[in-house]
């Protein structure tokens, strides 16, 4: 059964909840503009994004004088897009997918490769065909490099990508065998890329190539299907496996509903995923306008990741202009808090939830909040955000604590409160 649609018109608190989840957060004006709308129309409006970018992005990764500098600029450019771009949900989804189809800058150090990967995540962020998305990721030079399929040749298998395709990108553990991993690797032989290899060519654009002479054309059996399977066949079989619908839906519930998803609701989304042949937009539109999404127990149920905390603070403050150096620092600081963009610790990605919280990360969140509100480089605001924008609620729980403080101090203390850490 699909999720039940949420019937009421959005209250200001409903609108704040929706924007905290889909746009990292929002100013009072943005929340008020959404209040009174129909839930389905609001979700559809947010999902209806184009490929328009934030104007005036000061970071150009191609200007990096070394691979490392190009990577830093890539992070800065992405953070800028999240903070100031016209389609925060597209960026939130790109961030979510970067934590699903994981690659890492420890191995992927070619700048056009990173740009192509990131644009791929944006293009398919809410695309109607998950299998197509998976195929394009599998053939992206960034993924070929990161999981070594560029070295997977006939008779000389490299199983890295084949394994993670099943374990982390599609069905999840428990729905495939070691033989599927081995057979999948055979089918994926010959997929590689040319150009852009080595430290010297970090600005050269690589492209996917299929080397037929390195491909194993023999018969394979994969996920119960036998035949002369190609790499395309294997990715499609994995991406359209019934369990993939559950695995991917659970990821979306983690990102948008709660850190500990309700399996009944996940099953409902999975059913929609299967019925629509992997239409991510359909799944999201239903989810973001459901009673489940707006249920009281699912509010303030997601611990903001470091990037969500930083971008959320900037968007809540009304997107004040930050210095370029400060933005690069913030990208690094997010790394210190456990979320360096495009560099999760492992191919599994960030577990998130309570994993984001420990003594050191809490201390760093306090420092970031101070820098954005009280520090010498703090942006000047015409007005401080209200509790609705900061906390998603009109009746502030924190009133007693904040009484008598200057407006900037109130904002600072709210940013370090448990409530602001939650979306």
């Amino acid at each position, binding site marked *: 059964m699909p999720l039940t649609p949420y019937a009421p018109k959005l209250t200001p608190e409903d609108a704040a909840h929706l924007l905290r989840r889909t746009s990292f957060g929002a100013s009072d004006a943005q929340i008020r503009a959404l209040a009174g709308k129909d839930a389905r129309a609001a979700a559809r409006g947010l999902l209806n994004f184009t490929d328009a970018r934030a104007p005036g992005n000061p970071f150009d990764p191609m200007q990096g004088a070394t691979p490392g500098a190009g990577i830093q600029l890539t992070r800065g450019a992405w953070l800028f897009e999240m903070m100031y771009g016209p389609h925060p949900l597209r960026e939130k989804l790109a961030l979510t997918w970067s934590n699903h189809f994981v690659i890492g800058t*420890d191995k992927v150090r070619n700048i056009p490769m990173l740009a192509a990967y990131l644009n791929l995540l944006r293009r398919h962020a809410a695309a109607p065909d998950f299998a197509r998305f998976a195929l394009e990721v599998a053939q992206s030079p960034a993924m070929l490099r990161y*999981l*070594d399929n560029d*070295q997977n*040749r006939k*008779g*000389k*298998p*490299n*199983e*890295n990508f084949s*394994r993670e395709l099943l*374990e982390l990108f599609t069905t999840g*553990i428990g729905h495939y065998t*070691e033989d599927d991993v081995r057979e999948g690797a055979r089918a994926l032989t010959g997929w590689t890329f040319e150009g852009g290899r080595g430290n010297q060519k970090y600005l050269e654009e690589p492209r996917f190539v299929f080397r037929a002479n390195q491909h194993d054309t023999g018969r394979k059996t994969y996920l119960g299907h036998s035949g002369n399977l190609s790499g395309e066949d294997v990715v499609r079989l994995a991406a359209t496996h019934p369990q993939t619908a559950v695995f991917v839906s659970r990821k979306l519930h983690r990102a948008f509903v709660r*850190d500990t998803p309700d399996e009944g609701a996940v099953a409902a989304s999975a059913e929609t995923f299967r019925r629509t042949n992997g239409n991510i937009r359909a799944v999201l539109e239903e989810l973001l306008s459901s009673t489940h999404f707006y249920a009281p127990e699912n509010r*303030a*149920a997601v*611990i903001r990741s470091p990037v969500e905390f930083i971008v959320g603070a900037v968007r809540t403050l009304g997107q004040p202009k930050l210095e370029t150096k400060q933005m690069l620092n913030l990208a690094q600081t997010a790394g*210190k*808090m*456990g979320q360096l963009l495009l560099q999760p*610790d*492992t*191919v*599994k990605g960030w577990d998130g939830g*309570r*994993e984001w*919280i*420990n*003594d*050191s*990360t*809490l*201390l760093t969140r*306090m420092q970031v909040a*101070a820098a954005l509100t*009280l520090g010498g480089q703090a942006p000047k605001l015409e007005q401080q955000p209200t509790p609705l924008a900061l906390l998603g609620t009109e009746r502030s*729980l*924190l009133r*007693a*604590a*904040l009484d*008598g*403080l200057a407006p900037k*101090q109130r904002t*600072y*203390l709210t940013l*370090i*409160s*448990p*409530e602001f*850490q*939650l979306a």
Partner: protein
Amino acid sequence: MSPTRREFLKYSALAVAATSGMPGFLARAATQAAGSGNTKTLVVIQLTGGNDGLNTLIPYSNGAYYAARPNIAIPKKDVLTLTPDLGMHPALKPLMGLWDGGHLAWMENVGYPNPNRSHFASMAIWHTADPTQAQAEGWIGRIAEKIGDPFCASNLGGTTPQALRAADFSLPSIDGVDNFQVKLPAGLDAAFGTMLNTSRAGEAAYLQQATRQMLTNTRRVQQNVGKYRTGATYPEGKFAAQLRDAARLIAAGTGQRVLYITLGNFDTHAGQRAEQDELLGQLAAGLAAFQADLEAQGLADRVLVMGFSEFGRRVAENASAGTDHGQGSVMFALGRGVKGGIHGDSPDLENLSLGDIRYKQDFRGVYAGALSRWLGLDARGILGGDFAGPGWVA
């Protein structure tokens, strides 16, 4: 220390003591005096990504090893000979002094039943000490519950591994001792206290508790770390810096019984020699400096290091001059508290399981040695069973 800061610390101490809704073991700890008779510390080193045990402790007399690895085997002439059959990777040279002194132990063919080649499933098994993957708590989290002190184990690094997860809480992560302190802007102490003590439910209550615990932990560390004067020169890099922080915490007597440090990037599917050589070099140089520091501080009798990785790698190299995920591997331990030498047989390269070394020693037996013989704890209660292990703790 400014008067304001002193008041703030006093205040936060009260706030923590007055807490409600704390998990049981934290509440017990809040009323319990810190410190017990046993002052020994276990330092756990995690090599993330599946370190290739065969190129770490090398069966250099075995022709099958060289046959399986034409490109990436360590040439016999480069091996640091330990026994007539086994020797160390040349990058481990900084540890030779410890070996010669009888303070370095290798455990051979360590693993667990029904090996899982997933990094994450396998790591979770090592973290929870539960090959059925039924438990969410980590084995070190269970130590903390047993001792009743949430500060008795800490991770050094940014994110807390599952090994340090307790029923309702993660144990502290200290990402740099110097930064591990609360600096509240002037004039906000009282308001911060009120904000923090507002009554909450759900995830907000979890975050509230985590913040309170952080205030206690930072205070405990900062009150003590000034006592440390370094006794060795550490190499550059994060891993060595974390080992130095471990030495500082131990010297400061902050009371941790277990410290946890991670060194990553051992997933060497391609071009293994360059990558693993570099990592083993970092490992050895860092540990040698750490040990020298402890010796200089007069603390070497109190500290034992135990290292592991989630699995070893396949015996045969792959076509990318790397190795794919395998099963059994080596563990190591060092310090004055270990019984130096090789514990276990050389790997049997003629009798493989799907191309991998079969495990012969259960890692929980190795843990049991650290728990019962070093930390003086009831290993059975923590591991959920009796596991015989090599007698690696002196």
